[in-house]
């Protein structure tokens, strides 16, 4: 269970997160929805333990993150950022292997087991045949999948990606920040498929932040709606995703329908209603 | 004192050209930016005509009271003109300054350093003609020529030690050593004083040395000019100690490393004969036994 309790975060005097409570159960697939500037990215970094909240605390399986070392957190939580700008020309396999950092000591080199884990991770994201390619030569969608593979390698224990059958054991959390923002529809569907697969078969706990209503509706079983650093709604997608909440979140009128083809909700924005925040 | 090494280096870059400016009558007010020429003017009896000197002038003592107008790199045109000169002695390379003065109707005497000691006497005579001090100039020039000849006579016939003439180096270490090459003013002094320049084969005025070259050239005598300006016993022993890094050099081994101070060595003016004589005394002390 990954829980944020009354978390507040500020950049200087600007309050980005204000008394945010979020609970992500093991095995959940949660979407964090909100307009730009709502604090979604900050929430991800705070939940993921790379930013410390000014007030409140984040706990993972009952332990406060501040009591865990960086490496301990890294073994159980991985953040996939929106874009990855790689300064030097590493290969795809090298990037995947970077996820093994928290599992190795300072001067230890990656061993055959680490390489096997990285390869499994690449296979899980459909990027095995890119293994020897230069990361910088990949397309946006390919890069995103490789970075996800790197995160999977990071979360893998010695048993590789075969999880304990009952899903118990320490939570392994994958946090993604706008994973499809710069991708075309084909890649969007691919990433959604991978995440769905990882949630059901890989037994990962996944939280995705996005401003894309349909992506969230199609993928996530639960939603957290964030606006101006506050949670305005949270719960199962079918209950939370309504025209009223959408109006409060984005200031738009939208039509919410269940699509026969997918069995999922689909959102069509219609028109703007309010000029700005505070609705 | 090291300011005068600047003059040497500047002078070494300039050639000779005795130009006779078109003055209708001898100038009554002279400004000189060239310390060597200032000394010459005083030496020929034209000192009373000098109304302004460069920032680097030190000799003769009378210049202490005179206004300063800058130097090679930073001449103060306004200051020069405020002294209402009729003749201004400038470096030949100060073309912009010359242009400004000419446009203001002021005559200039461009000073170029000759590639020999003979040029000094020549310049003195030229100045004598210019300033109407022909007798004084002739006397000064002759004195210099005679003294140089006398030095040459004393050391003539004696075996000439292979000499390294160093004019700059970083204090207390053997880095950044500059020595006289086979061309120029310092080289001429060295040869007149009875020395054999170890770099006579180098067709340049200055040579920057590395240690390997020093060791392999193995000079018998090392003469250093004005390193820190201080040539007292403490400075001498400290600087000599720097050379002890290279004990195979004959000059170091035999203790023939001499520090010669005083700007007479680097101002190619009236005191040059005296400087050459001092150099000769260092190289051939026994030739001067009969003189204190």
């Amino acid at each position, binding site marked *: 269970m990954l829980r944020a309790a009354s978390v507040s975060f500020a950049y200087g005097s600007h309050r980005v997160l204000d008394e945010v409570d979020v609970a992500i159960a093991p095995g959940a697939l949660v979407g964090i929805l909100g307009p730009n500037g709502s604090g979604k990215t900050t929430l991800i970094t705070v939940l993921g333990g790379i930013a410390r909240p000014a007030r409140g605390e984040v706990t993972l399986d009952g332990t406060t993150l501040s009591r865990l070392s960086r490496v301990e957190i890294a073994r159980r939580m991985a953040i996939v950022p929106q874009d990855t700008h790689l300064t030097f020309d590493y290969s795809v396999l090298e990037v995947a292997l970077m996820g093994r950092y928290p599992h190795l000591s300072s001067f230890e080199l990656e061993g055959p087991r680490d390489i096997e884990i990285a390869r499994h991770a690449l296979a899980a994201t459909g990027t095995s045949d890119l293994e020897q390619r230069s990361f910088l030569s990949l397309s946006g969608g390919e890069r995103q999948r490789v970075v996800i593979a790197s995160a999977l390698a990071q979360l893998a224990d010695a048993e590789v990606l075969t999880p304990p059958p009952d899903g118990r054991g320490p939570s392994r959390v994958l946090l993604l920040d706008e994973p499809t923002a710069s991708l075309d529809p084909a890649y969007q569907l691919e990433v959604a498929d991978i995440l769905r697969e990882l949630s059901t078969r890989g037994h990962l706990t996944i939280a995705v932040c996005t401003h894309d209503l349909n992506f969230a509706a199609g993928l996530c079983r639960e939603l957290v709606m964030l606006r101006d650093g506050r949670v305005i709604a949270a719960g199962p997608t079918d209950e939370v995703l309504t025209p009223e909440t959408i109006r409060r979140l984005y200031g738009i009128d939208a039509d919410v329908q269940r699509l026969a083809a997918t069995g999922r909700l689909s959102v069509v924005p219609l028109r703007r209603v309010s000029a700005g925040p505070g609705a | 004192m090291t300011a005068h090494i600047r003059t040497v280096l500047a002078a070494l870059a300039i050639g000779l050209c005795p130009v006779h400016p078109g003055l209708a009558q001898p100038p009554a007010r002279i400004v000189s930016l060239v310390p060597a020429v200032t000394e010459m003017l005083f030496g020929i009896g034209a000192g009373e005509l000098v109304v302004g000197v460069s920032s680097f002038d030190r000799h003769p003592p009378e210049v202490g009271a005179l206004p300063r107008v800058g130097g090679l790199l930073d001449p103060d045109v306004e200051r020069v003109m405020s002294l209402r000169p009729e003749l201004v002695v400038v470096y030949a390379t100060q073309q912009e300054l010359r242009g400004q003065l000419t446009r203001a109707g002021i005559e200039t005497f461009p000073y170029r350093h000759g590639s020999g000691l003979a040029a000094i006497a020549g310049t003195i005579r030229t100045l004598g003609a210019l300033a109407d001090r022909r007798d004084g100039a002739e006397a000064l020039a002759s004195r210099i020529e005679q003294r140089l000849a006398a030095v040459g006579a004393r050391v003539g016939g004696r075996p000439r030690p292979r000499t390294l003439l160093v004019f700059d180096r970083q204090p207390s270490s053997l880095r950044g050593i500059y020595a006289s090459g086979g061309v120029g003013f310092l080289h001429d002094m060295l040869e007149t004083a009875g020395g054999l320049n170890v770099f006579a084969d180098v067709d340049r005025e200055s040579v920057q*040395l590395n240690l390997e070259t020093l060791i392999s050239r193995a000079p018998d005598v090392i003469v250093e000019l004005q390193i820190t300006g201080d040539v007292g016993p403490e400075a001498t022993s400290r600087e000599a100690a720097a050379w002890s890094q290279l004990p195979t050099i004959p000059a170091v081994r035999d203790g023939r490393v001499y520090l010669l101070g005083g700007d007479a060595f680097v101002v190619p003016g009236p005191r040059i004969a005296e400087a050459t004589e001092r150099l000769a005394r260092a190289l051939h002390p026994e030739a001067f036994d009969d003189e204190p």
Partner: protein
Amino acid sequence: MTGSLGRRVAVVWLTFGALLLLIGAAAPLIGSTAIDLRRVFVATVPFDENVDAQIFFVARLPRVVAAAIVGGALAAAGVVFQALLRNPLATPFTLGVSAGASLGAMLALTFGTPVVVPGLSDSAVASFVGALGAVAIVYGLATARQRGFSTTVLLLAGVTLNSFFSALILFVQYLADFSQTFRTVRWLMGDLDVGGYRPILSALPFTLGAFAIFAWLPRPLNLLALGPDSAATRGVDVLRTQRLAFFSASLATGAAVSLGGPIGFVGIIIPHLVRLIVGADHRLVLPAATLFGAAFLIACDVVARTLLAPLELPVGVVTAVLGGPFFLWLLIRQR
């Protein structure tokens, strides 16, 4: 490159190490003067009278050792700064360390120093002090108004300091007389003719200290290439890595510049060249760059002291002549 990482690391150390040994062993044998190698090692002739030994041990060998240290330090510092600033165009001189060192040397050569350290030239001591001063100012600026460390602010502070110190250097040159200016300009071109082991031994503790930290940096630097947040989420202590990278690389640069002057191009050509050969993994790049940088500068110094003998060509000119065109070629081939 395929093959296990462990094997590749070993191959890198062995090949580049062999290159350095080869060049380092040959360099003292080459020079403007012919020497008899047998005479160099003859024990019966006292050292103070053995010209061949003097040339070998006093004139040439210290230069070779100094070149190795300076070349290795600058190349390694280049690698680390490029990783820290996440910019392949960064050099050891980008952040103003060299400008501080140059200002220190300039002041010493123009105005002298109040304290004279025996065996070390004025410029060596003053330039090291100047380097440390620049590092302190840049670090202070980079950490002044935020928690942690902004590499953007670091870069801006460094570039600003470079400009400011360069202006001060010009001012000092203006105040200096002709010969002082001559000396300072010459210092700026680099000079490895250290003439003894004292300057080397003085620089060594700082260089070794820097390299002790360099030994730890490669893995975190690899991850830093993903970006600070991506590195952090994988468990890297980003702040500590950045601080250690900054201080160790600055220390290595300061020691190198005080020993041989601000020799350019080594800190940028070598990292790029090495990456073309061994790839991007810093566990390969850092040792390869160090060894190759050392070998490269030894070779450049041999050229500097023999090409125009008896005249000495400044070694910074040699590295520039070799480095400039190479750098242009690098830029052109970038897709």
